[in-house]
């Protein structure tokens, strides 16, 4: 009995403190989902970001040949603060190398033109809707950036916490005898509704 009480005590505390810690994630996912779900009511897709040039100068530290595209891009990204999610491209005609980094706040693009030895830095900010969807869609560990991986870990933590809330919630519910019937009805309603959608969709 004492063991059960102790387990229940820890389940209740962990249920509550995990929820308090993860409230920002719950709010972010709930609000971003509502916004994405109502895209058609909010004027459809967000307009494409507009780049603004913030720096254009001769590139003093032009890499000695034969530097690979990735080497040049990594150097440009480090020198001009390009955020973690980076894509690199090379213009086949001019040989210009572009590295574009994306954060939830917007895009930062650095272009190196070897002919003129010039580097251009452009930025494009995201609006509120894009910011939310960027946070929502970020998941996993595919990007070679500590910040992206840390975020991926937080998403995993949140998903595991959701499963824990379900399990601990079941336990807490079942220990309150007088809520069992109404609880079973609620749970049954949810399962039936979910199953109906499964079949209909």
């Amino acid at each position, binding site marked *: 009995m004492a063991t059960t009480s102790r387990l229940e005590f820890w389940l209740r505390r962990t249920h*509550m*403190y995990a*929820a*308090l*810690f*993860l*409230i*920002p*994630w*719950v*709010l*972010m*996912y*709930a609000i971003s*989902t*509502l916004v*994405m*779900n*109502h*895209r*058609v*009511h909010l004027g459809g897709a967000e307009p494409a970001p507009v780049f603004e040039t913030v720096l254009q100068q001769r590139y003093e530290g032009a890499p000695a040949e034969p530097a690979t595209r990735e080497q040049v891009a990594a150097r440009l990204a480090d020198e001009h603060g390009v*955020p973690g999610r980076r894509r690199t491209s090379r213009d086949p005609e001019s040989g210009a190398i572009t590295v574009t980094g994306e*954060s*939830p706040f917007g895009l930062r693009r650095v272009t190196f033109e070897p002919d003129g030895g010039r580097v251009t830095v452009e930025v494009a900010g995201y609006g509120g809707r894009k910011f939310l969807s960027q*946070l929502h869609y*970020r998941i*996993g*560990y595919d990007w070679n950036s*500590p*910040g*992206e991986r*840390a*975020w*991926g870990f*937080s*998403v*995993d933590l949140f*998903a595991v916490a*959701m*499963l824990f*809330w*379900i399990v601990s*919630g079941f336990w*807490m*519910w079942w220990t309150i005898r007088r*809520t069992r019937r*109404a*609880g079973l009805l*609620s*749970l049954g*309603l*949810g*399962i039936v*509704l*979910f199953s109906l*959608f*499964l079949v*209909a*969709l």
Partner: protein
Amino acid sequence: MTLAHLNRRLHLYLGLVLVPWFAMYALSALAMSHRGLIERLGWAEDEWTPRFEKPYDAGLADDADHATRWALARRLVEEHGLECAFRAGRITNGQFEMLCFTIFGATRFRYDLSERRLTAEDIRFGPVRVLTRMHGRGGFHHERLRDDLWGAMVDLVNLGLLIWVASGLYMWWNAPGQRRWGTVVLIAGISCFIAFMLGL
């Protein structure tokens, strides 16, 4: 019944009704987050199988607008007696593609404009793909009422999450013994979230 009591019951019963959705979102998020592992385990192996290939005159021009492509997609669904939600793609390299999908599978049509040839393939999704596809569904832009109803359900689940937060905070604040540590944990969570976000 006091407000505190009502709040507890709301927190509990709302959670129980929405359990299937929370479980689906949590499991599918983990599956998407660990896509590489899922593939290595062979849990994401779904294959397209040919359905047919035939001559077909869709009367589609290279520069057909979205409404025309959408109308063709609807026509293909109706002509082939399919029961599904659908999506009309763009015309790329002289080929139009549309997808007719349910939770458990999909049929993909490809129409070659110059050859006037229509091909169709079917796929049956495995459990992991079923979960991730459910996760991604929503919105109110569909042809079928039932798909829009799912969008309404997505709203309800997320409003449920917000009510869960509010009712949870109320319960916490009404347990005076937990206020100090709760505040510490809440501030720690907010700080971590901001730090993680700025690190992106």
